[in-house]
């Protein structure tokens, strides 16, 4: 298994005719993702890399039976695109777009409350179940199928970690970039709950950073309910207060959201926190040797 997406997932790319949308459609197809449709209003009838383009998500669902979406729509229109996908019942919505205004995400969060869709992002690299499918922009070749789940607020830092995992022989079940914004669709706990019931996942690497309290909440959940080993890494121990560190959500404000507080919360919950990024792969291996069982 794996969580949320696998080789049967049928993806629609919203904003497929844009530069990023077209490029990553090609990359996803190369990886083996079933990109079944694209959506750009007014461009029905065109195709991108052989993928048929429709005007609406409604059409993409109707004609191609898509059940996941990857959103590359520009920031001021992205909230609308996410709501469109959710209103059509698309099960997994991955929003890559960076720079969506916070109030737009407030509306998206309210909109999604009574719907079944799982939103990953925004401002994220997406989700990959190695060897099966990737819905997002991460470099596919650094991943390898295996038994470690990865959940991260970051993009390239996740690639770094995954590369080290693969390097020490630890493959991955599913890797999810939950996004660097302050309001995101799903957070650590949502995905931990899925990993808990996934037989392929033997342990989880959790990559957090400064800002907010998602890591503290995850620590509490893990201590109470998560039976598999977890190892965490928190970026931003040297970040100054009140400065937005690239990600909209990575800011220490009012003395809250410090890396040190997150590390303490995780450690108090009995979770190993790796301090040395250079040796993270080895640290994870020490905790999860057994997870290398089916790695080849």
């Amino acid at each position, binding site marked *: 298994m794996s969580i949320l997406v696998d080789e049967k997932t049928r993806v629609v790319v919203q904003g497929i005719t844009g530069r990023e949308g077209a490029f990553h459609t090609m990359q996803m197809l190369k990886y083996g993702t079933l990109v079944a449709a694209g959506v750009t209003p007014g461009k029905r009838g065109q195709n991108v890399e052989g993928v048929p383009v429709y005007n609406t998500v409604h059409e993409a669902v109707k004609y191609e039976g898509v059940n996941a979406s990857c959103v590359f729509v520009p920031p001021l229109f992205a909230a609308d695109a996410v709501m469109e996908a959710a209103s059509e019942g698309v099960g997994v919505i991955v929003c890559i777009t960076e720079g969506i205004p916070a109030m737009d995400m407030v509306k998206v969060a309210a909109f999604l409350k009574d719907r079944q869709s799982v939103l990953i992002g925004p401002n994220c690299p997406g989700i990959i179940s190695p060897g099966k499918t990737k819905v997002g922009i991460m470099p596919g070749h650094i991943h390898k199928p295996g038994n470690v789940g990865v959940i991260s607020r970051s993009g390239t830092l996740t690639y770094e970690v995954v590369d080290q995992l693969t390097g020490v022989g630890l493959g991955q079940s599913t890797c999810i970039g939950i996004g660097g914004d302050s309001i995101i669709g799903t957070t650590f706990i949502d995905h931990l709950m899925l990993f808990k019931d996934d037989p392929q996942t033997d342990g989880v690497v959790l990559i957090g950073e400064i800002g907010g309290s998602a890591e503290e909440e995850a620590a509490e959940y893990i201590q109470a309910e998560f039976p598999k080993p977890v190892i965490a890494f928190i970026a931003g121990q040297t970040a100054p207060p009140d400065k937005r560190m690239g*990600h909209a959500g990575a800011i220490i404000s009012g003395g809250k959201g410090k890396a040190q507080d997150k590390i303490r919360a995780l450690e108090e919950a009995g979770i190993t926190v790796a301090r040395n990024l250079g040796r993270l792969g080895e640290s994870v291996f020490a905790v999860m040797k057994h997870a290398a069982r089916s790695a080849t």
Partner: protein
Amino acid sequence: MKLHEYQAKEFFKRFGIPVPEGKVTRSGDEALAAARELKGPPWVVKAQVHAGGRGKGGGVKVAGSIEDVKEAASAILGTPLVTKQTGPDGRKVHQVLVEEGVQIDREFYLAVVIDRAKAMPVVIFSQAGGMEIEEVAVRTPELVLRQFVDPVAGWMSYQARTLAYGLDPLPDSDTLKDIMAVMGKLYRAFVSLDCSLAEINPLVITEQGKVIAVDAKINIDDNALPRQKELRAFDDPKEKDPLDVKAEQYNLNYIRLSGNIGAMVNGAGLAMATMDVIKLAGAEPANFLDVGGGASEEMVTRGLEIILEDENVKAILINIFGGILRCDVLARGVLAAAEKTAIRVPLIVRLEGTNVEEGRKILQESKLKFMVAKDMAEAAAMVTEQVKKSA
């Protein structure tokens, strides 16, 4: 993006929130002229800088005469203002706001922010005004009242009542109505202007029974600036480090820090983690710099130039995990920077990911002197070595 107090008060007026009459001035003489037009004494002279704690730092002065206004303005404008938010060097003050003094009877705190965990705006109200709300929240949490706002319904009257009737003692009914009205107006301003923070501290009841916003703080959600075109004109580059301003022009995420190891990284998370690696190696990072997932050669060149302009920098660590950003693009950007500016410090380069072989080849075949680290661990060791050498 932060607004100055006087700018925020202009917006408050537009939304119908009462503020003291005042005028922003740039010299002692201008301040004196402003005071003549305003009711007084007393007058209040307030430094306009993007930093909290101005009162304690001597940036807010009450003047009993026109001459005192001039003197206070000249003093504030002439010396850097040091508050706990400015750092030890302080911040040069370019403008002061001269206002009519207000006789305060009671002070409250009122603010709107977005609660991340709940993904909802929240209106925060406290009768412990004039103090730092974080401190109040720790010491007397029962004095901090909150109302979360359903984005579909918007701000409702019952919420204003729930907050206002929490006051002890209760003001008279007219004053209560005025306070509740300010709550609704502040929420409307928050939404209309795409704020990340709209704060009045203190909101006061004057001895005459009027409700007035004595201070005003508005921060705008940077992501919303593309649709808040009017607000972009309110940005004040004088409040920022010159290198930060330069980086903004090139769309680079750069934050100057006080250490001596420069860092150029793609991706915010990896950039923070790289800063931490530098610290773990026994040094301090000179900056945060995220050239972005899809950086161009030009952006890499500009990024390196900006790092080199910081005189504290004794070595540079370039850490790139190429995903969308290709390593060959990065390498060409580094070479272009080296052609324009002499790279006077040791350069440690760690490349991984898309087109890594081509990137390394471009660097190796150049005349540029640099050290190649094969992974993060080796990069960290090289930083430590540089620190020892320079010690």
